[in-house]
């Protein structure tokens, strides 16, 4: 064994002990599935081990590992989305939000969230509620929403990758937003004692 290989191996060991839990926690957060999160974490380290020679000491290994993991998370959602694409427009209908003329229903009129402020984003109870609401979305919508926020790609590129038309993509994001809003309303904004 030459020196390079030895030092790469030891750095993987160190990275596992320093970052594996953080990577795993994030993967679980983004997929809600422990087995998937374990696989994605393993794949990340495997890719890192293969590419360790490309890793330059001048960037932070944690940042580097997270960027590998985020790509893997995006791939996971892409695959999942493609698999479920068949039932794309069937689930979730809009009729609870809009009437047949496309007007808001009286019982679902949007009102501004008065008790919203930026500090809320750092409130862990709120983040739990948000997480629950995101994961309450139909899986397909959750995947599409994740892709929107976790990739630098343009909408048109995401549509190409997902193999759907742009208008389908807006529809999914639109429905996700309506549902997410309604869930947050119920579980946070209209609850007393917040």
């Amino acid at each position, binding site marked *: 064994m030459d020196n390079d290989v030895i030092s790469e191996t030891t750095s993987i060991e160190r990275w596992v002990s320093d970052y*594996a839990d953080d990577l795993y*926690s994030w993967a679980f*957060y983004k997929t809600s599935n422990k087995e998937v999160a374990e696989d994605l974490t393993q794949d990340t380290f*495997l890719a890192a081990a293969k590419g360790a020679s490309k890793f330059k000491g001048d960037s932070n290994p944690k940042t580097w590992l997270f960027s590998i993991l985020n790509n893997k998370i995006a791939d996971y959602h892409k695959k999942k989305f493609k698999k479920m694409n068949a039932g794309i427009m069937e689930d979730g209908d809009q009729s609870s939000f809009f009437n047949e003329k496309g007007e808001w229903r009286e019982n679902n009129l*949007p*009102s501004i969230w008065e008790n919203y402020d930026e500090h809320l*984003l750092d409130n862990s109870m709120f983040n739990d509620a948000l997480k629950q609401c995101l994961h309450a979305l139909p899986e397909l919508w959750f995947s599409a929403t994740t892709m929107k926020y976790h990739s630098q790609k343009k909408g048109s590129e995401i549509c190409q990758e997902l193999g759907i038309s742009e208008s389908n993509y807006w529809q999914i994001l*639109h429905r996700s937003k*309506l549902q*997410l809003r309604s869930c947050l309303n119920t579980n946070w904004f209209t609850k007393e004692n917040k």
Partner: protein
Amino acid sequence: MSLSCEKATVLIEKQTITRLSLGERIKLRMHLNKCQDCKNFKIDSEKMDQMIKHQTPSTAQKLELSAKIKQQIIDNSKGE
């Protein structure tokens, strides 16, 4: 031709990802000028974008990967 609230809110979402056509922009502006409900929705929709973007590894619940899998990772990466 004016937009329904349903169509207007689709455009609100679309606008966060891509540029609307001139026609869409005019229709949406006209709709929002007279529809407070959709205006409210737009404000909340932007808040939701902020909320989701704010989710980072530091806000995720901390979990521990089992020692067995950690060892497996180390063993497998030695084979690379």
